[in-house]
């Protein structure tokens, strides 16, 4: 018999990922710090990662949230690769995938159809982003 199986934690784990040739890392740093200050555990991928590397990190670290930062315009090719990678490991359905950076309005619907939960552009405030993540990771 084990009397105590422990208590449930509510620390949100998050991978902030930069993928492809995109060298814009200010936004990723800003968001990583904001998440940390909100009490999240943040793993930052570093620049120029391949989709496979991002998938590997997301699976092994068992993150609640995968936040992909893309300002290069390559989201239409890179995001699908990451999502299908997650699917391969059975991790797509319960990882909250969000995208930030420069994503034109006309591309958003397609990304969301793929499984991206939300997209945060330059106008999004830290508060609403953090609030969104908190709300959508509750029942994980």
């Amino acid at each position, binding site marked *: 018999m*084990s*009397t105590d*199986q422990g208590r449930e*934690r509510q620390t949100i784990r998050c991978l902030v990922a930069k993928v492809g040739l995109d060298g814009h890392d200010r936004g990723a740093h800003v968001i990583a710090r904001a998440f940390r200050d909100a009490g999240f*555990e943040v793993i930052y991928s570093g620049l120029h990662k391949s989709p496979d590397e991002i998938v*590997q*990190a997301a699976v*092994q670290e068992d993150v609640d949230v995968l936040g992909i930062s893309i300002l290069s315009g390559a989201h239409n090719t890179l995001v699908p690769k990451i999502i299908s990678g997650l699917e391969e490991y059975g991790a797509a359905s319960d990882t909250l995938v969000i995208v930030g950076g420069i994503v034109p309005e006309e591309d958003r619907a397609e990304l969301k159809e793929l499984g991206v939960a939300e997209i945060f552009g330059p106008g999004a405030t830290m508060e609403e982003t953090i609030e969104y993540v908190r709300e959508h990771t509750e029942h994980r």
Partner: protein
Amino acid sequence: MSLVADLLDGDHRALARVITRIENRAPGYRDMVSELHTHTGDANVIGITGSPGAGKSTLVDKLTAAYRDAGQTVGVLAIDPSSPFTGGSVLGDRIRMQSTATDMDVFVRSMSARGRLGGLSTATADAVKALDAFGKDTIIIETVGAGQNEIDIVKTADTVAVLVPPGSGDDVQMLKAGIFEIGDLFVVNKADLSGADRTVTELREMIRTRSDYTTGDDQPPGRIEPSIEDQTNGWEPSVVETVAKTGEGVDTLIDELDEHLAHLDRSGKREQRTHRRFTEEIATHVREDLRRLSTTEIERKGGLDELASAVQARDTDPYTAVDELLEPIRTCVESRTDRN
């Protein structure tokens, strides 16, 4: 299939999930670890510790690559301090471990210290079991060498390597605060920087002085001996120079690590260490569980404040209060002794 069955079946996601449960102390985690236990005991566990920025992650990365080249599978647990203010943290070790990126036979997991007092070493030991049961040949634990918590973590390893960057008086100070005693070998990393030679000399000097005093072999159970004792059994910690950034010296380090593991097996020390580790582990669990049981009982009685007020009002006294509090446990224990 259960999560543990999936893990044993080689499912990466299940392994990741089990570690999360372990970290969170999530419902059912103890049963999981219990199930895993029979499947453990095959991995070599290496602890890497040293001051912040000493180059631990960079070195772990190179070691991992070398072990992979030798055909071994590797698990890494990288433990990072969390912010004392928000509890949040940026876990920065993984970013340095990129040599084997996309190689799924390397499983890297970042863990935050998350302010669990003392519980961290338990969580780490349990996570090591998950990696061991999964079938990892070598498991590396990285942790900053500061404080008792870190020392406890790294003591769960078979072999402990302490990293010392060259030419800093501070590091020698830090070494004196308990880390030095647990080093099975010492690594002067950043050997490309000036002052490396002097640090090597200083370390050798310290090792010589340390072997001048001896500890008894008959230590009370529940205490893991510092590896100083090994010297009396023929192990003298070596000092290796490395440049983790380029990989220079890593082969020599691997040889030394292998040598130490071989020494553990030859001398029967591994068995002894493992035995003591389990002794310690059981003692820790008993302490923790009893603490929790008594906390529950205290709360049932209205909390410590309530009890204190009663004592203050001279309605009762501290001894009587504690006797009453622990009555259920005592009764249970005593009725059990009757049966033996």
